[in-house]
C-alpha cells in the first residue's frame, strides 16, 4: 500500500519534469470565462501558452499535439488567498512559517524566503485543479509580511513564483493584536500604529522626492519603510484581514486617508455592510465558504458571496488560513458551497478563476482560456462543483501535472 503511494509520488514528480507538451484539450463543455461556454470546445496549447480556443468543428488539431478529453474543461483554478507552502501539512512549529511573532509590524518578511515548493499540501490542492495561489504570510499579526503569487509547480520558490511580492498582509480586530500584553492591545491602537507607519513612509517619500540639498546622501535603507512606501505608491496592495464590520470600516477609513490600494480580506460580516463596501470601491477576497462560525466569525454566512455578487462588488473566494484541520481548504469545494447558496454557476467559477486572477493582479495572463494566456487548465468528469465529480487532470504551463481521478 505504501509502495503504491511512493510510486504515485514518483510518477507525479516525473510528470513535472516533462518538457511542455503541445496539447489539445477537448471538453464537452469548455468554460473559457471569456464569453459563453463552448459546447464541444477545444483548447490548443503551444509552448506552454494557449494558442487557440474554439469549437471543435472550427479548430483543426495540428499533428503532434497530445489530446486530452474531459466532460468539463475550465481555466486552472486561482486561489486568491492561501498560506499553503508557508503552512505545512504536519502543522509542526518547524513547518509553520506564515506568522512571526517577534514584532507587530513586519512588512519586510518576504514570502519568497519562506515558501516550501515541496510541501505536500501544494500537491493536494493541485490534484483538484488549483494551478495558482496568492500565498504567504497569514493573519495573526497587525502586519505579518508579504504574499506572493505562485504556480502550484516548481522545484524552488523562485521557479514557482510569478509575482514575488504580491501584497502586504495585515490583520485587524482580534487577529491584529499583539501577544501577552504587547501592543497593539486594542482596535484603536492597531489603527494608530498603522497610521504612524504610513505617516513615516509619507515623510520618507516626500524627503526622497524633494532632497533639501542635491548633494545630500541617500537616507539609510529601512526595509519596513520601503514596504510601506510601495503601498503608498500603489505598487503593492495592503491585504487587510478583518472579520468584524467595524474593522472593515476602519480599514476603508485608513485606505481613504492614505490613498492606498486596499483589498478587504475574509470579511465575515460583509453581509452587514454591503452598501459601505460597495461605496468604498475596494474589492473583497471573501472568506472560505466553510470557514467556521464562532468568535469574530459568528455572523458568517454561506450566502455572503451571493450578497457581494448581487451588489456588484468585485470579489474572489479564498481557501484562507487554518490553524488545525483541515490544514488547507480546497478552493473548488469552497466555491461549490457558494454555488449552492445563491451564486450562479458562472459567478462561482469566476470567483476561483478570472475574477480571482484579476483581483490579485494577474488577469492579463491567467484566469481564462484565451489565446496568449498561460496554458493552465483543469479537467473534470462532470459539474466541477458536484461533490461526486472528479478532477481528471490539471495542466500548468502546458504540462500535465496531475492526472487520475481526484
Amino acid at each position, binding site marked *: 500500500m505504501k509502495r503504491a503511494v511512493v510510486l504515485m509520488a514518483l510518477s507525479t514528480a516525473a510528470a513535472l519534469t516533462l518538457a511542455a507538451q503541445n496539447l489539445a484539450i477537448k471538453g464537452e463543455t469548455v468554460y473559457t470565462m471569456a464569453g459563453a461556454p463552448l459546447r464541444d470546445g477545444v483548447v490548443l496549447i503551444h509552448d506552454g501558452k494557449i494558442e487557440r480556443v474554439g469549437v471543435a468543428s472550427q479548430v483543426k488539431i495540428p499533428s503532434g499535439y497530445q489530446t486530452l478529453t474531459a466532460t468539463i474543461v475550465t481555466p486552472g483554478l486561482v486561489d486568491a488567498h492561501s498560506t499553503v507552502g508557508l503552512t505545512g501539512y504536519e502543522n509542526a512549529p518547524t513547518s509553520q512559517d506564515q506568522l512571526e511573532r517577534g514584532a507587530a509590524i513586519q512588512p519586510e518578511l518576504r514570502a519568497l524566503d519562506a515558501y516550501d515548493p515541496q510541501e505536500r499540501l501544494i500537491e493536494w490542492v493541485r490534484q483538484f485543479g488549483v494551478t495558482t495561489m496568492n500565498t504567504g504570510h497569514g493573519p495573526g499579526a497587525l502586519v505579518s509580511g508579504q504574499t506572493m503569487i505562485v504556480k502550484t509547480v516548481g522545484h524552488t520558490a523562485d521557479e514557482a513564483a510569478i509575482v514575488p511580492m504580491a501584497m502586504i498582509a495585515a490583520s485587524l480586530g482580534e487577529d491584529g493584536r499583539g501577544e501577552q500584553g504587547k501592543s497593539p492591545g486594542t482596535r484603536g491602537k492597531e489603527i494608530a500604529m498603522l497610521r504612524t507607519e504610513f505617516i513615516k513612509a509619507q515623510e520618507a517619500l516626500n524627503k526622497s522626492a524633494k532632497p533639501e540639498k542635491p548633494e545630500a546622501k541617500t537616507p539609510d535603507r529601512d526595509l519596513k519603510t520601503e514596504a510601506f512606501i510601495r503601498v503608498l505608491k500603489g505598487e503593492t496592495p495592503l491585504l487587510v484581514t478583518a472579520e468584524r464590520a467595524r474593522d472593515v470600516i476602519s480599514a476603508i477609513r485608513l485606505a481613504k486617508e492614505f490613498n492606498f490600494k486596499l483589498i478587504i480580506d475574509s470579511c465575515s460580516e460583509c*453581509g452587514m455592510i454591503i452598501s459601505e463596501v460597495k461605496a468604498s470601491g475596494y474589492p473583497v477576497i471573501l472568506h472560505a465558504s466553510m470557514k467556521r462560525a464562532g468568535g469574530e466569525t459568528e455572523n458568517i454566512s454561506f450566502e455572503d458571496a451571493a450578497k457581494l455578487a448581487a451588489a456588484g462588488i468585485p470579489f474572489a473566494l479564498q481557501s484562507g488560513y487554518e490553524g488545525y484541520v483541515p490544514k488547507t481548504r480546497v478552493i473548488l469545494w469552497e466555491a461549490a458551497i457558494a454555488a*449552492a447558496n445563491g451564486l450562479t454557476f458562472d459567478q462561482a467559477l469566476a470567483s476561483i478563476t478570472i475574477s480571482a486572477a484579476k483581483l490579485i493582479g494577474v488577469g492579463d495572463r491567467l484566469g481564462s482560456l484565451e489565446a496568449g494566456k498561460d496554458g493552465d487548465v483543469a479537467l473534470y468528469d462532470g459539474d466541477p462543483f458536484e461533490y461526486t*465529480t472528479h478532477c481528471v487532470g490539471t495542466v500548468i504551463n502546458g504540462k500535465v501535472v496531475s492526472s487520475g481521478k481526484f
Partner: protein
Amino acid sequence: MNRNPLFLAALFASIAFAQSTPIAYTGAHIIPISGAEIADGVIVIQNGKILAVGATGAVSIPSGAQLVDAKSKVIMPGIVDSHSHIGEPEGGDASSPIQPDVRVLDSINVHAAQIEKARAGGVTTANVMPGSGHLSSGQTLYLKLRKGNTIEDLLIKLPDGSNAGGLKMANGTNPRRAPPFPGTRGKAAALVRADLIKAQEYKAKVAAAKGDASKLPPRDLRMEALVEVLDGKRTVHFHTHRHDDIMTVIRLSQEFHFKVVLHHVSDGWMVADEIAKAKTPVSVIMIDSPGGKEEAKDLSLTTPARLEAAGVLFGFHTDDGITDSRLFLRSAAIAVRAGLSRSTALYAMTMANARILDLDARVGTLEAGKDADFIVLSGDPLSVYSHVLETWIEGQKVFDRGDPHDRLEQVGGPGASHDQNPFWTDDDGGGEEVQQ
C-alpha cells in the same frame, strides 16, 4: 416570537401529545435505507412513529390524514451522527487522565446554536461526546435533537431506565501531557489496562457480595462506569488516528472484551483488513486535506471505500465543530467521490450509525414502527445543490427552511451563532397547529 405564557404552555403540551393526526408525504423520492430507493413513494407517520412506507398506490393512506405533496422532494431517514460536540459538552478536567465518572449529561446547553444548526443539517440523533484530551474524558450521551427545554427532554431512555450513551476514550497524541497524563503510547495503554484490571476486580467483589450490602465494596463512580464497559452495556467510543494506535485499541478491546467503535481512523485505509478481521465497527471523519496534526498526516479520502471493500461496518461523523453538521451529507458524498458506493454511503449516514449506537430498533431506516425521524431534501442527498428543507423527530417538525429563523441557522448570518432563546420556540416547534 409569541411571548404569551399561555401560548407557551399550549406549545409544550402539544409536544407531550405528539402528533395524532396522521401525516402522509406523497409523491416523494424515498430512500428508506432498509430497501431499494422508491422513485414515487409515500410515507405515513402518526403519533411519532412511521405507519407505512412504500410506493405510491402500494400504501394505504388513512382517511383524515394530512396530505403533503412532496413531488420532486427526497425523503430519507433522519441523519445519525456517531460523534459530535454540539451543545458545549464538558468532560473531565485537568486532574487526571481517566475520568469515566464524568458525564456530559451534567454540562450540555440544549439551547446552543450548534444544536439548531445540526437540525438544519438533518441530524436527528447524535452521540454527544466529551473531548479527546484524556485517555477517558467521560460518559457520552446519545441524544434525539428534540426541541426541548432541558437536557432531559433530549435523552433516549433505555428499557432499564438508564440514559443511552457510551464512554469516550482516546489514544495517540491528544491525551499526551505532563504527568499524571501519559507521555508515551506505551504509558497510555498501560494506564488504561491498569484501570480496566481494577474494574475487573471491582466487578468480582460486587459479584462475590451476592447482593449482601455489608460485603459490597464502597461505591466507586469510576469503577461503576468501567464495569458497564466490561459488561458490554456501555460502548467505548475510541478516538484513534494512526494505524498502530488503531491496532492498540483492537488489542485492548480483545483483552478486556469491551464493545468498541474506532473513531476518526485517518489511517484506516492502511489497516482495513485488520479492522474487518477484528469485527470492530468504525466511525469515520472526512477532512478536506491531510495533516493539521501529526497523526492525521496520512489521512485519505479513500478510507471509507477501503473499509467497504474489507467488509467493515462503518458510519460517518461530524466531530462538530471540526466539520459542520449543516454540511454533514457532504462527508458521504466526498467518500463516494473517492470510491465508496452510494448505498453504503447513505447507510453510513443513518443505519450504520444507528447500529453503532445500538439504536437500530428505533432509528436509521424508514420502516413501519420506527420513530418518525426523517428529513425532506430539495434534491439528491449527495448533491451539493440540495438543501435540507425539513427535519422531523418523532413526528415533530424541528427544522423548516421556510421559517426565517430556521433558515438563518442553516445558512448563517447575523445572530445565527447566538444561543436559541427558549422563548423563540415558535409555532413549528409543536409540529401541529397550536390553538391559542
